[in-house]
């Protein structure tokens, strides 16, 4: 049994894997004391899988807090882990991967062997990231899974270049009586536009996948398909691709 851990900026994701089969997974919010939090998750996983400490063959860690976990047998950067994870899940079909993490967005290009050929990642900024959606979901009192809005709803224009400005913008739109669904659609469009600008003028080779927590928002995926003019598939268990990939990155 192998354990993959993604110590992200907003969530810690853990997977237990037997060969290449996912047997247990969990996500918890990131809090201070990440090392003991990870240990607690591992204990929960072992109990759920009816396994012992001795059954663990290796522990691979990735994510922002990757160097904080002492029990790791391998540490890998999250771009390489993400590439390995999506390659495994799509049997090597993925050529482009869009990852929306807690505080960054990545666009990763892969070759037929799943190797990273190029990538782009935003500079440190919350705009258009998981943190941005978390903020919007809180204000709108709507879980991310319900950010999908009917086609006939008209989107309002939202400035997603700064999470702080966007927050006050959403509050003032609500105060003006704008429907929350118009705002949600506006948020999805604004984030999609921002991701498209990160992609730049370069061609995104299909097949294109999306993962990370916000990939559960099907409304965002529709907006992104419009902005990038291509089809986008969602990875299975999109929050756990990176943790899984940590185990399989070279």
């Amino acid at each position, binding site marked *: 049994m192998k354990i993959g851990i993604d110590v992200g900026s907003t969530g810690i994701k853990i997977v237990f894997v037997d060969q290449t089969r996912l047997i247990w997974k969990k996500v918890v919010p990131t809090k201070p004391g990440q090392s003991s939090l990870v240990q607690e998750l591992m204990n929960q996983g072992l109990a759920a899988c009816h396994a012992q400490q001795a059954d663990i063959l290796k522990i691979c860690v990735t994510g922002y807090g990757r160097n904080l976990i002492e029990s790791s047998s391998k540490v890998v*950067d999250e*771009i390489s882990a993400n590439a390995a994870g999506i390659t495994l899940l799509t049997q090597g079909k993925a050529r482009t991967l869009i990852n929306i993490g807690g505080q960054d967005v990545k666009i990763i290009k892969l070759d037929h062997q799943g190797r990273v050929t*190029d990538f782009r990642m935003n*500079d*440190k900024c919350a705009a258009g990231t998981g943190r941005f959606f978390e903020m919007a979901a809180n204000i709108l009192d709507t879980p991310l899974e319900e950010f999908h809005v009917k086609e006939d709803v008209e989107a309002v224009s939202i400035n997603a270049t700064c999470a702080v400005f966007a927050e006050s913008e959403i509050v003032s739109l609500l105060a003006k009586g704008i429907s929350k669904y118009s705002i949600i659609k506006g948020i999805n469009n604004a984030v999609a536009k921002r991701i498209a600008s990160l992609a730049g003028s370069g061609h995104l080779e299909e097949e294109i996948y999306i993962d990370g927590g916000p990939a559960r928002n099907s409304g965002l995926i529709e907006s992104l398909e419009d902005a990038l003019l291509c089809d986008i598939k969602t990875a299975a268990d999109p929050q756990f691709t990176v943790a899984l990939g940590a185990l399989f990155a070279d």
Partner: protein
Amino acid sequence: MTPVSSRLDRLKTRTKNLVQTELETQTSLIRNHPDYSDSLDPFIKILQQTFFIEQFIEQSSKDIVFTPCIQAPLELFHAAGLQPFKLACGSFAVQNMAPLHLPALTCPMIRSISGLLEMNQTEGIPLVIPTTCDWVVKFSELAGLYEKTDIHFMELPHLREEERSAKRWHNEIQLFKTWLEKRTGQKIYSKNLLRSVKLYSRAFELHDRLIRLRRKQIVSGLQYALIMNAMPYQDIEIWMAAVETFVIGLQDTGIRKIPVFLSGSPIVFPNYKMLSLIENAGMAVTADDICTMERTLQGTVAYEDASEFALLKALAQRYHTACSCPTFADNHRRINAMVHTLKQYEIKGVIFHVLKGCHPYDMEASILEMRLKDQGIRFLKIETDYVKEDEQNIVTRLEAFNRTLRSIEQ
């Protein structure tokens, strides 16, 4: 209510203490680096002194002249018996002293320079400004230097390949010489200028040796940055002697990392954040085209004869046509030179460093990226600021970039 002058004095004292702590922390990091040798001490010492300009002047045997860019010929300063003082600053702490009216997105290096001038007593120190980027053009006005000092602008033609630009720049070089003569009250004779040109040619040859050692990873990116950053603050012969001593004491550790080319905004002491992060991610900066590093001594001066006209014309060519500052409109030579170095030394990746607000480099990034990727070169742009907080985000990208370069090698 506390008077403004008293509050300013308090701020000045606090900033000086912060800068002192920053210098101690950073130099201790540099000195504890496995690459460090005592022969680098003279370079660190002079770089530390540049933060306390009053003491620097006291210890200098020559009068100093500030200049923020590399287009004012060093040979002319030398022939006039003056010491250039490069206005480039990598201190995060000194930004505390920068005028509050600077725009929010001011280039961090300009913010630091403004803070450095404010922290020190610099009234009366003359300033030569080649009109390169907008920040350089406007900073003296923003920092309120117009009233305090003698400023000589050198109007840099932004077309590099045009004959009319060459003529204009030649004229600017002549005007600069006249300004220097007026400042010192001494004529710069051709024989003195020729002596300076020859001296700097020797410095160029020595620099060339240093670069070859760097390409082989015998000299590290960090060592090289210290040496080159220190050059525009001291007598060139003293600098050359220190470089010779350093080179003699070099030992090849035999360690070879993935080589990368560093391009973009200036890297200035004590801000070696990018160099350290790149090294820690398993790569070695073996080449660059940064104006505070390899471009400080890029190319020798080729003169037809020893007449004043020919020498000034040769200097004009060297400091204009041979310069690859991103503020030039026709900068294809820069890309060609970069591609040439990459191919010659089998460097497969370029890391492009942009300081937030450094617009010329930011604008050139996408053009470079397209051209380099067409040649099969991997390209990584990193935008950063004079802060430490984004290091983890940068490390993630550098580690992944290293993996992509290793996968090409395999």
